[in-house]
């Protein structure tokens, strides 16, 4: 076709007319959904501290509770709806991390427990783990050098 535009011009032209991401609404929803998830975590932490549990144990147990809630809601087909509304507010807390591992595990169960669930479970979480661990090592080295 005799194109009236170069590829770059076409890309720009089509993007100008594309429907926009509702940024304000997404930001507000992320704030509230993320806030609600963190408030629930805080309530669990307070309840555990009230039983006289040491702070380190209580915060570890809170994380476990939150992971369970994320995984459970994924299994109930609810977390994807929370994620659709809450965006980053639902993805960043540890519940979102649980969702990113449980959802491929559910999806690939048909391909078997080894090549399906086992191999695909970290499809989404894998990069987060790899770069999370690398950056923690880098930060650890810097911390060691600075405080030595």
């Amino acid at each position, binding site marked *: *076709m005799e*194109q*009236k*535009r170069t*590829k*770059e011009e*076409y*890309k720009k032209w*089509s*993007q100008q*007319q*594309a*429907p*926009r*991401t*509702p940024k304000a609404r*997404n930001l507000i929803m992320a704030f509230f959904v993320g806030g609600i998830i963190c408030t629930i975590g805080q309530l669990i932490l307070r309840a555990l501290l009230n039983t006289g549990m040491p702070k380190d144990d209580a915060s570890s147990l809170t994380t476990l509770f939150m992971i369970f809630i994320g995984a459970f809601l*994924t*299994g109930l*087909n609810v*977390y*994807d*709806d*929370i*994620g*659709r509304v*809450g*965006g980053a507010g*639902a*993805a960043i807390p540890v519940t*979102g991390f649980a*969702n*990113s591992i*449980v*959802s*491929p595990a*559910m*999806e*690939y169960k*048909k391909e078997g427990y080894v090549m399906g669930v086992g191999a695909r479970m970290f*499809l*989404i979480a894998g990069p987060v783990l790899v770069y999370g661990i690398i950056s923690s090592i880098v930060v650890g080295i810097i911390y060691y050098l600075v405080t030595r």
Partner: protein
Amino acid sequence: MGTRLGKQTIRLDSKPVIQSWASIVGAKEGHGPLGRYFDEIIEDEYFGEKSFERAESKFLRETLAKTLMKGGVSAGDIQYIFAGDLLNQCVAANFGLRESEIPFFGLYGACSTMAESLTLGSLMVEGGFAERCVCITSSHFCSAEKQFRFPLEFGNQRPPTAQWTVTGSGGVMVGKAGDGPRVVHVTTGKIVDMGITDSNDMGSAMAPAACDTITAHFRETNLPLNHYELIVTGDLGIHGKNLCLKLLEENGITIGDFYDDCGVMIYDQKKQKTDCGGSGCACSAVVLAGYILEKLSKRELNRVLFVATGALHSPITVQQGESIPAIAHAVGIEMV
């Protein structure tokens, strides 16, 4: 024997007849604006099977059975079947039709497959090599998400240019005689790549291909623009439809009053939260086999240009940063 009108277009002088058609869709499509036109609506996304891939094969198999039944013929009366889908190695068609005992051509034209199969089936009949051919495609939201995007239960946000893969299957039977809608022209598309790399924006990638094929169709057939009562593209969605109309206008083709897009027609975008609309092989197939052919056979429409559009990428090429090539094939269907 057909007359070549130009580089891309053939006029079919015997005007092969679309003798029967059938469509089976999933729940979301069935509850959409075109719901009442489909033959069957399946509420269970597994269709009683144990995986989405098997469910998609069943959609295709059942649609074939329905197409044959409505045409009053058996599998033995069909000389060729042209079928395709979106899954790797076209497994929905391969597995769905493995017991059919009909000579089989597996096609991959992404979401343009319905027009591709209808083109080839009609040419086979026009050439005298077949009394009857079946042209059929399928897609399934769940199997397509799994292959092209994220697991279903993963809580991500869909960008506003995203489209929703249609669950279902549509099929037509083309033959020599009868009084149904007839295939009069076929215009085969060229691959067009305008450098779009975002796989969540298929409308932008495919609009230039649709424009290219529609322009070629009118140039080579010399038909007046108002020859068709409906020109319908496959799955450009709201965004792509808008782009396609503007691109066509730049080529001097103003068809705004009688142009629509199957992806826009099949869902109620606001109520059903499908963003830019429907996509997938079944999108154009079920709108053709459900709505368009029904309207033609009742003579509520007399001449339709059916232009199915496809994005010819894979998840691997997208990850490697390649742009998305696109294609569109046009089939002129008329009541004579």
